[in-house]
Each structure stands twice: as structure tokens, then as C-alpha cells.
């Protein structure tokens, strides 16, 4: 195993997202919405403190469009 930790990021499956906006409501510090209600994600990676909020945002999505990935 590499000692370097893989960076975690929040990604949207845009084919699933319907712009319900729950993710932005639960984590407004890092998720905004555009004028049509679709999420605008902060592009930076997630550190340990962010992970809990990121996972909560992913869990509330009614379309299961949001995921935390390691890249």
C-alpha cells in the first residue's frame, strides 16, 4: 500500500441529479446551487473533518446522485 492517502472528493452523477437541492441545504458551506437549482460543488478535496458532512449530503439525495469517491 502506498503511504499517500488517496484524495476523497464529492461527485455528482449529473444524469441522476434532478436539482432537489437537499445536498446544498444540508451542507451550504461547500455546496451552492445555480440559478436552476442544480448543485455547484467546491472543487477542492475533502479532509477528515469534511467527510462526515459530505456523506450526510450524499445520503439525503433522493436520486442517489451524490457520492464520495477516492481518486
Amino acid at each position: 500500500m502506498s503511504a499517500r492517502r488517496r484524495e476523497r472528493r464529492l461527485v455528482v452523477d449529473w444524469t441522476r441529479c434532478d436539482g432537489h437541492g437537499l445536498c446544498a441545504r444540508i451542507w451550504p458551506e461547500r455546496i451552492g446551487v445555480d440559478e436552476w437549482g442544480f448543485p455547484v460543488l467546491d472543487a477542492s478535496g475533502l479532509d477528515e473533518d469534511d467527510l462526515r458532512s459530505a456523506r450526510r449530503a450524499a445520503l439525503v439525495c433522493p436520486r442517489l446522485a451524490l457520492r464520495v469517491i477516492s481518486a
Partner: protein
Amino acid sequence: MTLLDMPPTATPPVVSLGATRVLAGASHHHAVSYAEHRALAGPLVYRTHAWLCDAARQVRLLGRGGAAFPVATKLAALVPGPATGVLVNGSESDPASHKDRVLMRSAPHRVIDGAMVVGAALGTARITIAVHDPLAARALADACRERGDAAAVRIAVTAAGFVGGEIRAVLNAVEGRPAVPDGRPVLPTERGLDGTPTFASNAETFAQLGLLAVLGTSGYADVGTASEPGTSLGTLLGDVPRPGVAEIAHGTSLDLLTGATGDRPVLLGGYHGTWSRERGLRLDRAALREHGLDWGAGVLAVLPRATCPLGEVARVARWLAAESAGQCGPCVFGLAAIADDLTRLHAGRPVDVSALHRRLGLIAGRGACGHPAGAVRFVASAVTAFSDEVRAHAGGGCGRPVLGSLPLPGRAA
């Protein structure tokens, strides 16, 4: 007849600029027969997977579909074996580009040679060529019948549409699913034809690989520059000295190809490309990238002086919005709003310019494929390059008609 008012069934003229290799012997009224092709190209040379990876790396061969991904990296990611797939993407989908159609219609054996070489290197006979254009499909099918070695090659005619040419949309189309990209991107080298790892690339990439196998790396590098040996196909469009499809040696001056256009912006790369006023550029993908430009689908266009540039751009912007596959919100709503803004700018109606710029900045990267990012690049660069036109239209318009000089499918220019 110019390229602009040609019916879709007509093959654009093949323009000879002195670097003819993959288009040797080809013209718009003549498809190179197998006998002619073998006489011109010499006997087909099969190479090992290792040789082909190494040679593609040495000549810095980049994919010709627009993304310019290193071919060697893609080839090296695959393990040879009978289950490995080969997918030739001939579904040229940018209406400004004609190079792949001309190549497949006029020199189909070049593409088949490349597919056979890649198939042999990967130890597989699972070769599919995906095409939108019915005439190209017929030329390829006739060519396969003409030669003894291509009986296993499958030709799949897939639905047209800009997004339908994206490689994952093509994979879905050849397997009978809707021709749209999946939401979770998986590379064809991991899961391609029938779910197995697949080498998928543009038709011209295969023609270049066939040529590389025959010429070897030093012969291939006889033409072109040290940073990018060889040639590229391109479509020269509009008010240029020699409109048509050309094979162009890398390093060629783009000013030579576009003619002395004064300060008129040049469209580079197609409808996912960039309008630029830069001069002194050369055809070299790495060098162009340093200028923030991209050879893309290989289109160079200059608008005639008689047409309204803003109207032309608005017309293409509406088409780009309509070409959204309808899967992703930012693309569906964003491109429609931007097309509407451009239409209003052209008509001299009030536009919230700061909202337009915000929209243009918010769409790239928020979709399942590159369509929204490419469409926004086209529009945003036009708004900058034609800023004088934008100002003129704020006062009511420029008085010129929109001639439809930028070709769109199914519409007479």
C-alpha cells in the same frame, strides 16, 4: 460549389497541400480501390503490441477525435487476448468537421488497415467500426468485401447527433442502447465492447496507426515536427483560400491555411472549439495548448465578411443547446439560457451581460460528457473574439444578414 452549400451526400473536395499520406490517391469523386491502395501504401505490416505501444509513444501519436489523448497510453492499458475489443469511432458528429467522412468514403482501406494492425497487435478479431454517415458505412463495407482479410470486421451504423459521437455514447449505440453517455464515467479500456476492455479511438487515429506500422517510426517522422511528427487531417471552412478536407503536415502555419484574414477571428477545433484572433500559430497540438487553443476536431473556419458573426454564433449556440442529450440539468438549462442570451444579443434586445458571463463560467465540468464544456468554450470565446460585434449590436445590429455560413445538419446554408 463550396463546402457550405453542399448537400450532405456530397463529399467535400480533398485539398492537396503537399503532405498527402493517408489521403494519397483520394479525391471527392474517387474512392481508392484495394489494388490502388496496396500499390500506394505497400504491403500491410503487422506489429506486436509492444512494438505498437513503443512506436506510438516515440512519434507522440495523439488521438484524433478531439481529446488528443496519447495513443500509446491507451494501447498500453490493454492486455492482448481474443476477448479484447477494437472500436473504430467513425461517428464524426461535429457538423463543421468532414475529415473522418472524407477519409472513410475516399480512403476506407487506410482505416481498415489500421483496425487490422491494432487487432493483430491485441491478438483479437473483435473489430467494430461505428459510423453515422451512410455513405461512409457503404464505402467501408464495400472495402471490407474487396479485401480477403477483413471478413470479421463489423460495421455498425449508429444514430447521428453531436453527443452520439462521444465514445461511451457510441459504445451504448453499437450495443443497442440509447446513444447517450453514462452518468458514471468508465473508460472503454476497462469496460468497452460487450463489457470487455476495448481499444477505442477515432477513425483517423487508426489510419495513422496503419501508416505507422508500415513506415516505422523514422519513416513516419519524415514529415511533421520533432514535438509532433506526421500529419493531421483537417477541415478548412468558409472564407479560406482552399476550402475542403486537407492532410496537413504538423508545423504548417495556420495563417497559410486560413489566408490573410486581417483581424477576423478564426474558429479552431469545431463547435466545441475556440474563436481566436491570434496569428503566427502552427499546427502542433502541444504548442496550441500553450496558447489555450486546441486542434480539437481539426476544423479551421473563417466567416465571410457578408454574414453577421453574432447571428452565426447564436444560430450554432441554439443548435448546441438542442443537441443536449437531455440527461444533465446544467447542460439542458444552461445551454438553453446561453443560446437565448446570444439570440437576444444578436437581435439588439437587452441582455444581462454579467448573468451571461456567470452562466458561461458555471457549466463546464458539470455533465456526463464534454458537450456542455465544449459548447460553452465555443460561445464564450466568440463573445470575446467578437466583442466589437457585441458592442455594435447593443445599439441595434450590424445590418448584415445571417447567411448560415457555419454548417448545421439538415439545413441548407
